């Protein structure tokens, strides 16, 4: 049953980066050449050209009917891989074996011409993507219906709204019938309803018609819904190939940027009367924290240096991995003056206990700010702590879709304490 349609063996793609600020003109090349010649004659060092491997030693096999997601951070080599697979550029090393007709969709609406009407562009774009005229004519009505642009078929697409443009473009591509479909990030366009429709179409194509789909996206929920397997690229190398859930976890781990210390995330406001000298959470200064159980509370400790008298309270935010805020805790706002401290110049130690709500397994971010409630933000720590939560369950998902502010997230009463350090 497992019949490989794509076999990639130790694929590499190298780009040469010129460090001289060269515009490629003939004159530059000539002067460069002459200079290089002189340099070689006088036996000085060779011209500086840096190699950059966008892909290095990538090997994998994909079987018929699989929907494979390719994920990785920006610059990991995803797009280069797709470009090589769709034959836009040649690999520097290695080999690829493709079985069946390949259609690649590296961009929505490639080759659309603004002056041409929707009808004309369907034919043009179809031909560019590799459809024959007869094939386009056969599917024409279906394409138009899917894109919902019947009324504007004879209007030049330069007058289309960007949504209509994208719908038409995707619709043409969705009606290709290749054995292998390569798709890059095209779902990041269009409104939510149309995105859903596109995803549905892609899933349907792969499931019912036994096609193979390669799919690059940053949209993890789309990847999760569509894909049967994941390839994870980082810095041009294939670091993981396997199940979706595991791949996503690994991807989110590589997404975490670890500068090391939580303190380094400090962003002081201009003219702030205080700054933070040390920050620890549960006694650790790192900006990453693994929590086996979220029922633990977090002990936050800061060493503050105050340069002018000020009134200070602590705010905390909990966000999901993508930075969408889930919860906010600010006793200074809620309980008034009880949690706002008047600080005199000098050093002070802040201690707070933070209760976390019950969290599903996954990755979260904690953000802190030192504020004067309602009036000023002195210092903030965006994405100060990356929380990896094992949680009680093993399901992957987001907890707070209905309840933006769960009751569990709060500072324990009476636990924001600030006292002078002698």
């Amino acid at each position, binding site marked *: 049953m497992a019949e490989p349609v794509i076999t990639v063996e130790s694929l590499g793609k190298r*780009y040469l980066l010129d460090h001289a600020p060269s515009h490629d003109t003939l004159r530059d090349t000539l002067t460069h050449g002459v200079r290089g010649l002189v340099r070689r004659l006088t036996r000085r060092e060779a011209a500086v050209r840096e190699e950059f491997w966008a892909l290095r030693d990538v090997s994998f096999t994909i079987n018929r009917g699989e929907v494979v997601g390719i994920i990785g951070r920006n610059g990991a080599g995803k797009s280069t891989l797709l470009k090589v697979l769709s034959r*836009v550029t040649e690999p520097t*090393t290695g*080999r690829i074996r*493709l079985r069946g007709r390949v259609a690649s969709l590296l961009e929505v609406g490639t080759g659309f*011409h603004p*002056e041409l009407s929707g009808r004309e562009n369907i*034919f043009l774009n179809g031909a*560019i993507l590799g459809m024959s005229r007869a094939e386009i004519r056969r599917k024409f009505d279906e394409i138009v219906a899917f894109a919902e642009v019947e009324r504007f078929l004879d209007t030049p697409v330069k007058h289309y709204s960007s949504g209509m443009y994208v719908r038409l473009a995707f619709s043409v591509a969705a009606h290709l019938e290749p054995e292998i479909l390569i798709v890059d990030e095209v779902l990041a366009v269009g409104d939510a309803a149309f995105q859903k429709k596109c995803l549905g179409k892609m899933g349907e194509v792969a499931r019912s018609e036994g096609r193979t789909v390669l799919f690059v996206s940053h949209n993890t929920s789309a990847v999760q819904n569509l894909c049967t397997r994941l390839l994870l690229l980082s810095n041009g190398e294939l670091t993981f190939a396997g199940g979706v859930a595991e791949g996503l976890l690994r991807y989110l781990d590589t997404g975490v940027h670890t500068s090391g210390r939580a303190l380094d995330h400090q962003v002081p406001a201009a003219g702030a009367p205080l700054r933070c000298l040390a920050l620890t959470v549960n006694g650790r200064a790192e900006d990453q924290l693994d929590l086996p159980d979220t029922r633990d509370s977090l002990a936050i400790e800061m060493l503050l240096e105050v340069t002018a008298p000020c009134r200070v309270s602590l705010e905390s935010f909990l966000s999901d991995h993508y930075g969408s805020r889930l919860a906010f805790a600010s006793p200074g706002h809620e309980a008034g003056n009880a949690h706002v401290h008047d600080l005199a110049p000098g050093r002070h130690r802040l201690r707070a206990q933070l209760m976390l709500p019950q969290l599903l397994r996954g990755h979260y971010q904690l953000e802190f700010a030192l504020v004067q409630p309602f009036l000023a933000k002195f210092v903030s720590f965006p994405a100060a702590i990356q929380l990896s939560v094992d949680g009680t369950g093993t399901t992957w998902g987001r907890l707070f879709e209905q309840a933006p502010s769960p009751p569990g997230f709060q500072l324990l009463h009476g636990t924001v304490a600030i006292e002078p350090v002698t």
Partner: protein
Amino acid sequence: MLEAGRADVHYWHDLWRYRELLGFLAWRDIMVRYKQTVLGAAWALLQPAITLVVFTFVFGRLAKMPAGGLTPEQYPLLVMAGLLPWQLFANALSSASGSLVSNTHLISKVYFPRLVVPLSALAVALIDFLIVGLLYLGLCAWWSFWPDWRVLLLPLFTLLGLLAALGAGLWLTALTVRFRDFRFIVPFLLQVGVFLSPVGFSTSNVPSWRFLFSFNPMVAVIDGFRWCLLHGAQPFYVPGLLIGLGVTAALLVSGLWYFRRTERSFADVI
């Protein structure tokens, strides 16, 4: 199927598979060209018509060049028979050499044999050529000077002109991808070329230079056109034709070689 540094054996097969794309690209360029113009396709006639008047005036009236077997009143026919292939060559060459760069968005996003792009530029030039051909027929009707049986060889010379444009165009378009300088070089070449080719005058006016002159591949094409269209008023100059064929073949072969060699890095450089 895809291997590093190996020329694709399926290339020519692919080129055939993508022949419809060639048609579509040419069709797109034709459709788009005269959008938002008032005169529309009349532009295709207007430019050669004005060139015809100017050349007739300068070479025929001012310089009083011999009309090569025709009467002086028929000088426009001589010019037009030269202008026809020259326009074909000039249009084909200039659009072919700009073709890759103006289709950057396709080159960097979709695979197809890149040769399709300059070839489609040739197709567009050929359509223009047919339109200008109507102008020539108009002149024929005016002087009641219809071509005889020799016109049957005209397609061969048209092909020769196209191949010369393709050969040079392949070089220039591949070089333009890398060096945008060639965008400035091409119009200049064509501007000079119109005087270095016997467009406004007959080759028989330059007997002593004729051999050297023949290294311009368009000389053979224009002479051929005049032979076909003007009842052989312009006799064949066999060494010239052979040289022209040789130069065209050399351009074409080397152009293809260079194009194929650089083609696989187009997407990285463009």
